[in-house]
């Protein structure tokens, strides 16, 4: 639930932003959950649509939510922006390894070497792809 208190010194858009962020971090709003539309949330809270839109924009900039055109606004796969960027980098890395026709084990060895890991996983090159 989102509760807005107009008597509070905190601006309404900030109240909305902080509460959604808390709900995402606590897991009450799991990834891929669809948020209400700006207009619906604004009318339920008796606020101007611009106020809610501003909160959503801030959350989108932080990587907590993502807008998918007409489908609405959704909680990002990872509300944490750092984790989301790391996931994206990993996806790009995996795609490049496939382009180079390297096996998963070879890719893992290269990744560990790049990370400066002390040792590679147990016999990575000896195992076969399933």
């Amino acid at each position, binding site marked *: 639930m989102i509760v807005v208190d107009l008597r509070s010194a905190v601006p309404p858009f900030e109240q909305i932003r902080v509460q*959604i962020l808390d709900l995402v971090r606590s897991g009450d709003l799991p990834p891929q959950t669809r*948020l209400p539309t700006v207009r619906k949330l604004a009318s*339920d*809270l*008796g606020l101007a649509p611009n106020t809610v839109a501003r909160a959503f924009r801030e959350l989108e900039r932080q990587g907590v939510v993502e807008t998918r055109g007409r489908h609405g606004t959704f909680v990002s796969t990872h509300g944490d922006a750092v984790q989301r960027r790391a996931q994206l980098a990993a996806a790009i890395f995996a795609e490049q390894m496939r382009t180079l026709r390297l096996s998963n084990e070879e890719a893992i060895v290269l990744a560990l070497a790049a990370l400066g890991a002390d040792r590679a996983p147990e016999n990575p090159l000896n195992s076969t792809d399933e």
Partner: protein
Amino acid sequence: MDFTLILTWLIIGVLALLAGVTLFMLQTDRYQQKLFFRFWQAVGLPVQADNVAAAARLRIRTRTSAMFVGELAGLFLVALVLFVNPSLASSSFIWLFVVPAVMTTMTTLDVGVALHYSLFRRRADAPRLARATATTMRDYVSPWRLRVAPALVVTAVLLNLVGAVLSWVGVIDPATFGRSSTLPLLAAAVTVFAVGKAVERRILQQTQPAADELELAWDDAFRAETFRALLLLETIVAWLAVGAAGIAILEGIDAIAGTVWGTGAGMQLFTLGFFVVLSIFSFGAAQSHFRHRLWPNLVTPHPDSGLGSN
């Protein structure tokens, strides 16, 4: 005046009388309290504040009044049709005209109340609460109940196609099938279904002013009730289309074979199916699905605790 016409007028008169009596009884506190208590038990939400009970009672009164005024309007319309064209009076007139007309006008006014009135008003000094997630029809009506109306509309379309093909190949009598009211009822079923979906989207976007979770939960209860009425209308009209097409095929077979059992059996099955449809939207968790889905942690005190007698 033949017996069928007299019987049809009698049924319309009895239905109008019942609606009138209900509207009269709605003016009494006792009947309002009875309706509130029944609704409270069905939805299973707690009543912990006077303003919640008062708002719920007012909404039940407004909604019930609107629905029975709608019933009277529907009966007036069919009475007008019957007055202008008494030859329409037949054993199927009640199913083909009275039931769809009455249900459509009742549901229309019910939806009108839901769209026009908010259960609670926004108070200047109170905090404002809203749900952080978007709700869908599945939050208010169980998925399998949602599938009944579209499944019946598709069945009606298929039965009409089957009827047309069987008429073409001569298995059933084309004249008998053509005389039936399958196509107008199919058009009505498709129209009601399409309009119903548009109205559902409109209601989902409707503002829900609430100062706390209990107020929002009660607003959800009435919203779920409106959806239930809307889906019942869609399903019943779709069932009428299925029934009309099925009976028309059986009548066509009877006309070729010179028998009468098909039409009789079809009518029996149709009537049975009508009550099954009513049961689907009346029993089980038909009225409390939203609570399990949206408010699983709201606990209802025992009805004898006196909290409902506000």
